[in-house]
């Protein structure tokens, strides 16, 4: 069976679901961030697969570059917030952080 667009789409669907599972179930905030990275990678696979098979030339790849840029910005900000949370609460477990202010 020839590898076509559907193979890449199903790969990205499974990767997206794994990332979603990680975001929903993990207690540690850093692992939630890792789940978000998996989800962004799944979206990028879709963009580039459509860019290759969907006749969109390079537009999909250009948008994938923007996704990577935003993922980098998101990781930097989110880790700064997580470090602050750790300073305040001495834990990064998202189920124990239930106060906006101490």
């Amino acid at each position: 069976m020839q590898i076509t667009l559907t193979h890449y789409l199903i790969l990205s669907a499974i990767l997206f679901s794994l990332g979603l599972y990680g975001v929903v179930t993990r207690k540690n905030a850093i692992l939630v961030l890792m789940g978000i990275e998996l989800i962004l990678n799944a979206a990028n696979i879709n963009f580039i697969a459509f860019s290759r098979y969907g006749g969109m030339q390079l537009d999909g790849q250009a948008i994938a570059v923007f996704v990577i840029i935003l993922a980098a910005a998101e990781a930097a900000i989110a880790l700064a917030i997580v470090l602050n949370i750790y300073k305040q609460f001495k834990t990064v477990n998202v189920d124990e952080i239930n106060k906006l202010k101490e």
Partner: protein
Amino acid sequence: MNLFDIIFYFFALIVLVSAGIVVFSRNIIHSAFSLLFTFFGVAGIYILLNADFIAVAQILIYVGGILMLLVFGVMLTNKVVNVEIKTGTMHTLPAALLTAMTAGSLCGIFYATDWTIVEGIPEIKSTTNSLGEMFMTTYLLPFEVASVVLLVALIGAAMIARRDKSLQQ
């Protein structure tokens, strides 16, 4: 089954197995290091899709930048006395149901839809040149906005991370 298919399944296996370890492993360090293999596998998938520039950018930015940040985050937010850093999970059963439903419906939609596919193998050439031209012409405004967003995000991250000292003085 030709070589292309075998390479695709190889990279897909790497991506899915290491993503599974990221999600299911109890040890945070194991998760962080198998995320490395996920990113490398996704880069291989990009190369199979004729996206050489994105593949290299993926390795440079994700592996060199984001994964480093995440590993530092793990080390700074845990008391690393021993290598075993465990973490718990919560409400796994509803999450597993939700995720299985999402995966099933997505796969069903992807499989059932009659995608318009460009037949044949496109001319294989380096995409860096044409991508650079696109960023300087079609996508000039988003490109500049993205650069400002990155600058603001990095300054903001530095501000947030060392806020307590500057505020107390």
